[in-house]
């Protein structure tokens, strides 16, 4: 099974106000979500720099293990972005991803990280603004939740 690189999460750096800046991994599918992220960039839309994008051929290639690994490496939040429901380039990939995210959320609850640190979003390649919105939403959410409890362990 493909492994995540093990230097995803940088050592924490506080801002001058000592405010917590979340580190969020965004698994994004090439055909829709990553394209939307690209478009957001081209449109010069502002979205938080807390998001680290990982491009995948399809959201269906994300496994529960990748999500857990990201948290093990210290990610404060993770989201998976795929094509709109019914519009997956590989037909079923985003459906499978959705089911895996449900299971992963369950595990996150059980281990004490909480299911809200993980989310799945659906968008089309033309939805630059939507990507920016999702990035902001997740960053805000994670900022409120605080840093991952395993940082520093």
């Amino acid at each position, binding site marked *: *099974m493909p492994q995540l690189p093990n230097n995803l999460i940088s050592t924490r750096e506080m801002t001058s106000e000592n405010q917590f800046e979340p580190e969020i991994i965004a698994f994004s599918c090439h055909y829709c979500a990553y394209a939307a992220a690209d478009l957001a960039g081209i449109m010069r839309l502002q979205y938080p720099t807390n998001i680290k994008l990982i491009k995948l051929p399809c959201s269906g290639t994300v*496994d*529960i*293990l990748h999500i*857990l*690994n990201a*948290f*093990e490496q210290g990610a404060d939040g993770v989201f998976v972005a795929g094509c709109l429901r019914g519009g997956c380039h590989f037909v079923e990939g985003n459906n499978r991803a959705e089911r895996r995210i449900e299971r992963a959320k369950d*595990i*996150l609850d*059980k*281990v*004490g*990280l909480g299911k809200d640190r993980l989310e799945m979003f659906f968008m089309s390649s033309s939805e630059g603004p939507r990507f920016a919105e999702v990035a902001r939403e997740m960053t805000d959410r994670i900022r409120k939740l605080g840093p991952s*409890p*395993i940082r520093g*362990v």
Partner: protein
Amino acid sequence: MIVAKQKDLEVIVGMLQGYERILVLGCGTCTAICLTGGDREVGILASSLRLADKVSGKNRLLKEHTVERQCEWEFLDEINDQVKEVDAILSLGCGVGVQAISERFPDIPVLPGLDTLFMGMPQEESVWVERCSGCGNCILDKTAGICPVTRCTKGLLNGPCGGTNNGKCEVDPEKDCAWTLIYQRLEKQGKLELFDEYHPPRNFQAVVRPGRFTIK
């Protein structure tokens, strides 16, 4: 194949209390096929356990490995060295696997990560169903290839009972009434006379438990 499901994470965490170095051992045969004990599941479980540990401030050694089959001695040879480095093994094999490991390495606790359920097969995506009880006296030639011992809730040999309901079992409307299925298939095969045959009481000692089978 043998079908088993994972115990709840809280239960597994409870079982692992007090151990500092753990080997999570998967099985590449039956439990890999029912997606509860293979290489991938070992990875997910070990990661979950590490996360749970870290959240509670612990940092234990969790090794991961998967053998082809836990139930054959030859395949356990490859973990000889790893076993020396841990104080407990969490097995994601069926009950046979857990016991085989424990018999081979009797000095070290071997803990069951799964609850073994039944002998069965995958019927459709994500659904495994029981098909055989290992009764030791197969009568599938008389029942159109449908086992009443296993698929009838009461294990009747002269069914159906009065609880059959539109072809479903009264106990679980998701489950087919085995004897209705048997009737329909015997009818299709033109062998309804088999349905009328009287089956005497089952020999429950056909296999004296625990079973043992030898070949000369």
